[in-house]
């Protein structure tokens, strides 16, 4: 096939540097032995990684983000899979409107979603509760699950399901033994994308947390806007490391480009 020329490869190298630069700098700074942001670090020290352990605020926030990601990704998957089955394979009035509604959180600016959730939750006095966070995050991440599940639903050969039905399987058995295994890659991919989105969400979350439910991105954000120190870099390095590990696992299982493009590409 065509090969890229010399200048194309130069452009590519510069581009990769641009994409990686900010992350490499964060990782580099986190190894400094000094008390300020220093790059390149004058020596390698794990001082600021040890310091994470002395800051239970950040560890608590990480746990909340983890639980929130697990809960909201699971809830939205449970809701999005039946909805995707309906939208992906039935023809009915209001189908397009329903799909547009379920994808609309991608279109509404996140800051608008944030204030809308704040208004709603505070009126019912559940602002800052974990339940409130889970419900709001479920709304935000549902479009991601829906898109990936929809892509895999449309690829299912329905004659297999009909064969199972004709052999006497009930609806539920057909779903459990035939349909679900066939759409599982899309479901798992959607769940992972939902988890990552929820784990990283800042703009909406910053409006609807209270001090006891503050998530990791919100804690990092409020710390950065007040002061920057190597502690913030070492915590960020841990976040990068965890995301990369998750990404590599997803890439092996599902294909990262497929996950990001939303099932369009094979």
């Amino acid at each position, binding site marked *: 096939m065509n090969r890229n*020329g010399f200048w194309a490869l130069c452009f590519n190298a510069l581009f990769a540097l641009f994409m990686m630069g900010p992350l490499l700098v*964060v990782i580099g700074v986190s190894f400094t032995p000094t008390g300020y942001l220093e790059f390149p670090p004058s020596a390698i020290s794990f001082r600021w990684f040890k310091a994470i352990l002395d800051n239970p605020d950040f560890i608590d926030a990480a746990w909340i983000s983890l639980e929130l990601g697990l809960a909201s990704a699971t809830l939205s998957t449970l809701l999005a899979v039946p909805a995707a089955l309906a939208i992906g394979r039935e023809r009915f009035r209001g189908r397009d409107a329903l799909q547009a509604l379920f994808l609309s*959180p991608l279109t509404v600016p996140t800051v*608008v979603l944030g204030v*809308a959730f704040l208004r709603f939750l505070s009126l019912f006095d559940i602002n800052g509760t974990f339940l409130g966070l889970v419900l709001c995050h479920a709304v935000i991440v549902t479009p991601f699950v829906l898109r990936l599940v929809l892509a895999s639903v449309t690829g299912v050969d329905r004659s297999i399901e009909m064969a199972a039905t004709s052999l006497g399987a009930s609806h539920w058995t057909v779903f459990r033994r035939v349909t679900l295994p066939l759409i599982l890659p899309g479901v798992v991919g959607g769940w992972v994308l939902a988890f990552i989105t929820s784990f990283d969400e800042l703009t909406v979350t910053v409006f609807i947390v209270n001090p006891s439910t503050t998530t990791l991105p919100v804690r990092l954000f409020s710390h*950065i806007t007040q002061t920057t120190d190597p502690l913030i870099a070492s915590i*960020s390095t841990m976040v990068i490391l965890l995301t990369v590990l998750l990404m590599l696992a997803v890439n092996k299982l599902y294909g990262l480009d497929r996950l990001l493009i939303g099932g369009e590409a094979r």
Partner: protein
Amino acid sequence: MTVSGKATPWFLSAPALTLFAALLVTPLAMTFLLSFNSFSFYGGIENTFGLENYIEVLSDTYFYEIFGRTFLIAFITTAICAVLGLPEAYILFRMKPAWRSFMLLIVLGPLLISVVVRTLGWAILLGNKGVINEFLRDIGLITSPIRMMYTSTGIVVALVHVMIPFMILAVWAALQRQDPATERAAESLGAGPFTIFMRIVLPQAMPGVLSGSLIVFSLSASAFATPAVLGGRRVKMVSTTVYDEFLNTLNWPLGAAIAILLLVSVLTIMIAWNKLVERRYSGVFE
């Protein structure tokens, strides 16, 4: 499932529909109503109904400046993303599969890493004593630091970093739809690489650039973390203004009005853009 009646799809969608009706449609409607209420520093939110918040925003040059800056930054970010993202997507597309997977991980991977973390990286790079300024001073190119933190330029650079993966994904999807035979045909007819790119690849990639631009523009116009950290209080954008009205000033009705104006303007631009693209490229989207 051939047995399904008319009610089945609604039955299957009911759980998700309930959540969206309760936690998306209702809150948005309530925010819309809130934007007509009034606010006083002593009485808080008053349940009146009037247009004073909208009049306040639309008659104050301070807010014009913020909205203007927001859309200008979003526009420039989109343009840069298109100019850099298109060739990069094409280069990635032409790579051998093994290299390509690795490069995709590097180029698209940051999309999945927290925006706060990426913005911290840019804060370390762009500061007056940041990596870029120290480097330029070490090699003797500058004597006093170039100010990049708390400027619109700094915000644009970091926003391009955050948004460009979306552009690459959109162009990528368009490139996959193109017919590889067209490139070979042009080559066999004697076209050079540049001509092939301009006359064959670019027109076929254009729908991708346009849909990518739409995504990048709307996300940039409502970006929060990057302008909040890199712009601070000096370079305010619409989303950071809404944040301040809600969580610092506590003037919720005014904040709601600004948020509704942001929503309306973003939606208007998106619909107009879609119309334009559909008319121009109606043949491509069949």
